[in-house]
């Protein structure tokens, strides 16, 4: 049985430049002065032509980056927003937990809010009275139930909201990223409740950035991107695609960021700054990090190879040039540094212009952001062109080991067996 049906739903929002509201005064002054506000599109599209169906008993996960429209979609399903076009039908009693704090009146006590919320969720007063103790116990709020909700911490009000919502026994439960708050014990209880719901053939739509939880709970995952449905299907597949897309996006962003910095550096090519100095007999025109495939990239997996390519120009030939690189951690710790002199290289005639490339066979670094310094200098250290703290790259790793560098290693375990 289909319980949620969404057909071609779109939603636009008014752009709220500074604040969502205005004042009569402003409106009046604008009118009197016949002031027109700059005619830029005052709306933006939060959701575009979304269609989906959810059957009873399904657990559907919504994933996507911030601002992709996940929360908007849940609000539309709940009836809080009205779609600009398209049709939404939801069959069954709905319980919703949207963002932190649930729907509470801040001035009212926890007790009063349980009643209000319960009625909104479709319970009668008698139902609520019967379940009241269970709700309070589940939320672990026995001591504070008569305090106004505005005095609650975000964890407390989320607990209360979750508790009321699940005890209202809705047919369909919408949950928006609320499991992120609350301590481990409470999360555990929530998971048990959700499991219980699944077991009783209830429908759940879950928004979360916790991809592990999504994969664990859901039968189906929907991936929203910029207000459109990018992909839907088996959790494993959609989540993998989503992760890949994030990595690709980050890589592209990092290349763009590198180029932005580069163009800034070369606009003030002759300026002496704290980040660039030297007499420029040799000038480093550009620096790029490339994958082994040749693709420029500033995001690497730990252990991947990279090539650092420096494009130079010789303004006045010198005989004692050295090219060097250094990799520093974000906090300034030098992870590794070397140069052509240390490695015993004698440079050929450099010509007028050319490239120096160093291949780093394994970037065995921990997850983090690193700084790449490059330099051309004389053997005695006299700087020709020194670039310090300008370029950065990221290293990602699935492993949880710690430190600066991953030292290649292997474990051997030999219990001494007692001779019996």
């Amino acid at each position, binding site marked *: 049985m289909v319980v949620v049906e969404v057909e071609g739903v779109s939603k636009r929002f008014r752009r709220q430049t500074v604040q969502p509201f205005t004042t009569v005064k402003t409106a009046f002054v604008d009118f009197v002065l016949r002031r027109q506000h700059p005619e830029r599109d005052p709306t933006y599209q939060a959701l575009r032509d979304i269609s989906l169906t959810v059957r009873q008993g399904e657990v559907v996960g919504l994933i996507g980056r911030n601002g992709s429209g996940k929360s908007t979609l849940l609000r539309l399903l709940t009836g809080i927003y009205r779609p600009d076009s398209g049709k939404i039908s939801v069959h069954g009693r709905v319980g919703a937990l949207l963002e932190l704090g649930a729907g509470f009146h801040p001035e009212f006590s926890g007790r009063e809010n349980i009643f209000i919320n319960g*009625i909104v969720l479709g319970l009668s007063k008698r139902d609520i009275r019967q379940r009241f103790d269970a709700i309070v116990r589940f939320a672990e709020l026995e001591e504070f139930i008569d305090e106004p909700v505005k005095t609650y911490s975000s964890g407390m009000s989320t607990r209360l909201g979750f508790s009321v919502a699940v005890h209202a026994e809705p047919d369909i439960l919408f949950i928006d990223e609320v499991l992120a708050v609350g301590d481990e014990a409470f999360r555990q209880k929530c998971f048990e409740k959700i499991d219980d719901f699944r077991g009783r053939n209830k429908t759940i739509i879950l928004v979360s950035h916790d991809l592990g939880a999504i994969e664990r709970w859901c039968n189906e995952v929907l991936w929203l991107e910029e207000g459109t449905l990018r992909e839907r299907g088996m959790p494993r597949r959609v989540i993998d695609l989503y992760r890949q897309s994030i990595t690709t996006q980050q890589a592209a962003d990092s290349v763009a960021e590198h180029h932005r910095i580069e163009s800034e550096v070369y606009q003030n090519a002759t300026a002496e700054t704290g980040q660039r100095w030297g007499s420029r007999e040799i000038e480093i025109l550009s620096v790029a990090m490339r994958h082994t495939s040749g693709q420029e990239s500033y995001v690497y997996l730990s252990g991947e190879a990279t090539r650092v390519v420096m494009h130079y120009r010789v303004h006045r030939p010198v005989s004692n040039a050295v090219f060097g690189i250094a990799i520093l951690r974000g906090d300034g710790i030098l992870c590794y540094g070397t140069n052509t002199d240390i490695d015993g290289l004698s440079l050929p005639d450099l010509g007028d212009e050319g490239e120096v490339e160093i291949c780093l066979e394994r970037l065995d670094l921990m997850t983090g952001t690193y700084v790449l310094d490059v330099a051309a200098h004389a053997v005695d250290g006299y700087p020709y062109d020194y670039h310090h703290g300008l370029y950065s790259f990221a290293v990602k790793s699935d492993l949880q080991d710690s430190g600066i560098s991953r030292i290649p290693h292997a474990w051997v375990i030999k219990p001494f067996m007692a001779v019996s």
Partner: protein
Amino acid sequence: MTTIFRELFAYRVLIQTLVMRDLKGRYRGSALGLLWTLLNPLLYMAIYALVFSVYMRMEIEHYAVFLLSGLLPWIWFSSSLLMGTTSIIEGGSLIKKVFLPPQVLPTVTVIANFVNFLLSLPLLFGLLLLFGVTPGWALLVIPVVMTAQFALVLGLTLVVSATSVRYRDIPPILGHLLTFWFFLTPIIYPITQAPARFRSLLFLNPVTPFCLAYQEAILYNKLASFEVFGAMIGIGVCALVAGVVVFGWFRWSFAEEV
């Protein structure tokens, strides 16, 4: 058009709960409880009686009773409007995070203030007895006046609560406006005191016929004229229609703007 009322009906249990909560909140934590509600009009009454009956020697029979019969309905009217303006903004999280028809909130304000008004009526009748005025059968018309006034108050409260979400300076503006409005309504003075050529001006004020009807029925055991009744009902219906229409314009923006 009628959706707004159908939803109110569907949420009547919630409205009842919220009204009870509102009233309890007002009277809780003070032994004097209800007395506080009565104290406010009593103080006003004492001060106006002092100024107008004693200092300025206005010749009005039973001035205190006269004053209260206009003042109590006015308090219902003005506090509903004033509290109603912020009702949706304050209940924001109820509108943003759960599906609650927003008109529930201003309606609760109006009903709570109405109940408050009813609770303060014994004061008025006590005073009547004290002054030896025997109320007559004309009192039977009061429920009709109240119904019409309820429509007026609800309609206007819907308008101000909805518009305040976008225009955040409406609550303070309304505060000042209500002060002027109070003096332009024949509450502290009888309408007959106003020079004849200004009287039609007083009738531009939609609250005027209500005050007259209360005063006539309570003080003089008289029915207000047919015109006054027509005006009250017309004003009530118009205000309600305006409230529903304006609320309908703004309603779907609340969740986004509150």
